[in-house]
């Protein structure tokens, strides 16, 4: 599908990487010193590009002795992610801990609730089967809806549109993973008197691709202003290992391999970067259509999807609403 995204990507990547690293690392120090008042940072390392670059920037800002890494795999995590996470922690020279959260997720019912909803859709689902959710609708003007894909132990894949209750239950159950990880991160942050790093990139932050009180929760988010392609560029600039620089974005949340674009975005990440950049720079749909090889109508749908996700996920960013403004230093960190 990609036709001429190179010109936009070139513009996106034409930033001074040294200056960017300096800007982020001095801001991290300033935030810890002036606002957060903690003496180090906890970073959960998934083995993906965002957490790797966030951890590397934390180390650049504070040195390896003030950064604590966490590897938090569970039953559906890919073993490659864990290996890459371990490789990164050792590459950065930070202290780290691997804590398998599967027993805790099992105890709280995460897998059981999820499987109950899957079985309502595919009654034969059971031991040895795999699953994932995919999104449909984004570039075709349809209302976004979700398909459940399962694979039996013989490798046969089947797909059905998810009913509302089953969809909500599967998502609620899998959100336990991000929320439990965050509890573990804050345990170690409290124990060490550190702050917690959130690792969303700009498209995740802007489009609300995170779990409230899960991966969305953090004290600082050092790469939330960077497009995903910029994060990859910084990974190479920071000299991170090739396996990490070449990591393909996945959600690492479902047992079948699932690209982020399958689950949430209308487009793969490079195209999504280009679409969001064009949207933010007031480029008309015809411009985006030409860059991505879409029809103008499809480009309009992509812009509509961006606006819609921004609007519908805004509340994920908010703190709890109060009936009237309660004044105090907690109103704003300034």
């Amino acid at each position, binding site marked *: 599908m990609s036709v001429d995204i190179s010109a936009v990507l070139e513009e996106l990547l034409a930033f001074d990487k040294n200056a960017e690293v300096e800007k982020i690392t001095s801001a991290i120090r300033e935030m810890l010193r002036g606002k957060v008042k903690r003496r180090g940072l906890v970073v959960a390392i998934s083995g993906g590009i965002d957490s790797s670059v966030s951890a590397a920037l934390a180390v650049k800002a504070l040195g390896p002795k003030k950064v604590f890494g966490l590897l938090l795999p569970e039953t559906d995590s890919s073993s490659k992610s864990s290996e890459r996470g371990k490789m990164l922690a050792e590459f950065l020279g930070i202290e780290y801990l691997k804590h398998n959260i599967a027993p805790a997720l099992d105890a709280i019912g995460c897998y059981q609730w999820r499987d109950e909803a899957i079985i309502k859709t595919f009654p034969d689902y059971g031991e040895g089967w795999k699953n994932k959710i995919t999104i449909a609708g984004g570039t075709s003007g*349809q*209302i976004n*809806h979700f398909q459940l894909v399962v694979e039996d132990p013989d490798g046969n894949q089947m797909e059905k549109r998810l009913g509302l209750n089953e969809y909500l239950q599967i998502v609620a159950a899998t959100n336990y993973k991000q929320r439990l990880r965050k509890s573990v991160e804050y345990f170690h942050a409290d124990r060490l008197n550190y702050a917690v790093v959130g690792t969303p990139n700009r498209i995740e932050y802007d489009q609300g691709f995170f779990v409230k009180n899960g991966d969305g929760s953090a004290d600082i988010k050092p790469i939330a202003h960077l497009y995903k392609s910029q994060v990859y560029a910084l990974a190479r600039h920071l000299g991170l290992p090739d396996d990490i620089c070449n990591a393909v974005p996945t959600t690492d949340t479902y047992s079948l391999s699932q690209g982020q674009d399958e689950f949430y975005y209308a487009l793969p990440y490079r195209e999504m970067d280009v679409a969001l950049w064009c949207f933010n720079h007031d480029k008309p749909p015809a411009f985006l259509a030409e860059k991505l090889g879409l029809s103008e109508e499809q480009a309009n749908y992509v812009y509509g999807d961006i606006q819609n996700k921004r609007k519908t996920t805004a509340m994920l960013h908010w703190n709890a609403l109060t009936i009237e403004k309660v004044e105090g230093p907690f109103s704003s960190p300034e």
Partner: protein
Amino acid sequence: MSVEQTLRDYILENYLFTDDQSELNSADSFMGKGILDSTGIMEIIFFIEEQFNIKVEDEEMVPENLDSVNNLVAFIAKKSG
């Protein structure tokens, strides 16, 4: 009760938390006016499938069929006809 009134009552009760009929215009775009998000639309689909005994196909999940009371009324009439 008419299809339109059934839909209006459902939306007023569940999304606008009122029984004041003036709060909802049957031509209002649910998503445009921020009455529903895409999960809300999924709830509406669930509701009309149960209530009117119809099946909404994937290709029918477009705003023209689902994004206002008027659109829903026309869509349900077409499906039931």
